[in-house]
């Protein structure tokens, strides 16, 4: 299978039209500050720039990308800067929902496994719970200030903190990452294009 069918997940491709009189040197000189960042190495040949980033700072404007190639192509209607960038962060975000769905399955499997032993523990702990069922105290200050009286503890009901974890939060995070991926794939594509454009126009 051609990898291009799936590599759009973490590969960002695009192009920026260059001014007619702009030379390759001028273009790469203007983009140069973007590649003089912490953890970034780059090589420049005539009309190609290859860069690689490792442990890039959060403040790096291209921090979402880990490497890429920028190439100047001469066309009939003028020259264009074509770029092909790769991002592990995008791939990670794409795969994250799977991780959280897996976590949900694990939670369900564990709670099924736990059920029989939890029931056994319930019967053994009844004596202690019954003792707790006595009156719940309320301080006179709280009574005077009008705080609602505490509910009596229900022996049959499990305490809130003793509840088994549910799979809901894992499903919620799977959905959050799916949404974040869509946002990131579109947003980062646009941002990098705008960044290149701004850098090329800037003095």
């Amino acid at each position, binding site marked *: 299978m051609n990898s291009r069918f799936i590599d759009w997940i973490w590969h960002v491709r695009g192009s920026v039209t260059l001014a007619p009189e702009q030379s390759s040197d001028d273009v790469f000189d203007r983009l140069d500050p973007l590649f003089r960042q912490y953890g970034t190495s780059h090589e420049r040949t005539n009309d190609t720039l290859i860069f690689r980033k490792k442990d890039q700072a*959060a403040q790096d404007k291209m921090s979402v990308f880990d490497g890429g190639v920028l190439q100047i192509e001469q066309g009939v209607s003028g020259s264009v800067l074509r770029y092909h960038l790769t991002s592990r962060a995008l791939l990670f975000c794409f795969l*994250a929902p799977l991780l959280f769905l897996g976590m949900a399955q694990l939670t369900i499997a564990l709670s099924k496994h736990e059920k029989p032993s939890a029931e056994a523990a319930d019967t053994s702990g009844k004596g202690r719970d019954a003792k707790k069922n006595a009156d719940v105290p309320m301080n006179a200050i709280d009574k005077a200030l009008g705080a609602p009286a505490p509910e009596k503890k229900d022996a049959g009901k499990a305490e809130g903190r003793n509840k088994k974890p549910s799979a809901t939060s894992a499903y919620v*995070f799977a959905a959050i990452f799916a949404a974040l991926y869509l946002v990131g794939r579109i947003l980062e594509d646009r941002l990098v294009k705008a960044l290149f454009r701004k850098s090329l126009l800037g003095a």
Partner: protein
Amino acid sequence: MDGVRVGKRLIGTQAPVTIGWENIPRVEGGPVKQFIFTWFQPTVLFALLAFWYYAPNSIAKASTAVGIGIGFKVLLLGLEWVNPRHESWRLTWKELVTDLFYVGLGYTALRIVDDYIGDKVMVEAVQHYFHWDKFTWFMGLPLLVQAFLISFVFDFGQYWMHRGMHNWYPLWLPHSVHHYITQLNINKGAVGNPVELFLIGLGIGGFFDFLPRAFLLAGAFGMAIGTYQHINVRFNSPRWWRFLFNTTEHHSLHHSQDFEATRSNYSGSYIFIDRIFGTCIDGEAELLGMEGGRRMSIREQMTFPFTEGWKSLKERFGQPIATPAE
């Protein structure tokens, strides 16, 4: 860099820091903005306390607290957007994804682990072994006293665990990862190696029997104070607030690239614990991180304590490799 003398220590000899409240910038803007960012923190704290104190039993539940917690974080994200403390700390898509990944781990994987070997399980085991009952007299105290004590006891434990992490190598290894963050945002508190996140979450609250409402009030203390440790918002926190409570200023200093500055402000919510033990420094820093601001990838954050630990063990106990004479 000369640094500034604070007690016996020189702070800021390796990286820029600002020491002293008088040197910290104020919120810029009109009177409305000034008013909002001066009174936001106390208003939220007292409003939350009043809410949990008076909410009917049908509303005063953990699920309501979760809802409020999420809503509050979204609101703070909005504040980060409109009034950032430092432009260089602006939340990017990648930072948000990374932070939320750790938040997600906290809500899923860490919960599962906690259920088997967390503090609740340990406390129950100790109680069972010594035939101890819970300290039920605690329930008779006024609600706010109970709430404060729950959060204070937890924070006191967290202070010493955190201080231990900065002073004992085996504990430093899992915690070090959290210090590779290069900016503060509201979810950055969740970023770290899972081993550390498990350790810092340990408490002895399980020994006490308290009213559920007191627990919710304690959560309000944590949420309305502790959350501001990691946030990219500039506030004009009132003097009494920054004297008692940990602020993003204190915590940014703790995260600065200056080694001496990081050995301060260990508490989670109550900075007066640091004041008592002489580890508090009032100030702030913008340049954060380790190794000159190297940002660690998630993969390295997961493995670093183990690989570094292994390297150190090999250096200490490994066979020296014979180098051939030239």
